[in-house]
């Protein structure tokens, strides 16, 4: 049987083999996604267990129009949001749009020209700095990073899970990358030509 094709009827009947396959195919991915979304290890463990329980209890509402894994991500997302209400931080990041526009002249050419690759910044420094900068992202920006970069979902799939348009996903990805760039520059990564 192909991955992601656990029969729904078997799940509804709590068939042990079907439950085992559902858990095998999704537990590690959901845990990784939960941690990536900024939940602590303990919160992630609780959230993952809750996701499966919620999935089974709402199985009758699942119409099979999306993959089971997508449905599970959607549940996880709501669990993560319940644990991390941070709308104020999301709003704070809107200011980045002005920063981005300041990179360009009126004719659309670069005003702050990107620098050549920074060979002085070691990969160890980069890893440490990226980890530090990720903490500064809003939960929604982290969610987009998890779905787009780690889980390698398309913009449409990520939008489906987050309840956003593909355009909005693009804007969030842009803001997350721009935020990381500014933060990394603050930690010594040379991104702009002197």
């Amino acid at each position, binding site marked *: 049987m192909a991955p992601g094709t656990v029969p729904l009827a078997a799940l509804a009947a*709590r068939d042990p083999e079907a439950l085992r396959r559902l858990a095998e195919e999704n537990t590690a991915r959901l845990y*990784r996604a939960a941690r990536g979304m900024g939940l602590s290890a303990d919160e992630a463990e609780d959230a*993952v267990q809750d996701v499966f329980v919620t999935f089974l209890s709402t199985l009758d509402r699942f119409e099979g129009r999306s993959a089971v894994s997508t449905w599970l991500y959607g549940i996880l997302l709501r669990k993560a949001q319940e644990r991390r209400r941070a709308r104020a931080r999301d709003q704070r990041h809107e200011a980045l749009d002005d920063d981005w526009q300041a990179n360009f002249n009126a004719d*659309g050419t670069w005003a702050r020209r*990107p620098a050549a690759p920074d060979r002085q910044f070691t990969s160890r420094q980069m*890893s440490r700095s990226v980890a530090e900068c*990720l903490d500064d992202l809003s939960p929604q920006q982290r969610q987009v990073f998890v779905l787009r970069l780690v889980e390698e979902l398309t*913009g449409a799939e990520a939008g489906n899970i987050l309840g956003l348009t593909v355009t909005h996903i693009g804007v969030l990805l842009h803001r997350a*990358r721009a935020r990381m760039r500014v933060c990394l520059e603050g930690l010594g990564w040379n991104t702009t030509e002197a």
Partner: protein
Amino acid sequence: MTCRETSTIVAESTLSELPLVVRARLWLHMAACRYCRRFYGQVRAIDRGVRAALSQVGDEMPADLMDRVLKKMSGTG
């Protein structure tokens, strides 16, 4: 296509997903613009770092979590 347009598309998307005609216009611009090439390189470096960091953070999943999930699911309904 200006540098602003090019770098905004680069920052908002994954290039492989873009329609062929948009990708062609991007590559054409970047072939002639070293600053947009550099910006694209920075985005790729950030993505690599983020991907590595976010993947690692889930590597420490407790070995018994799947068993607990199964137990919890079996107890529902």
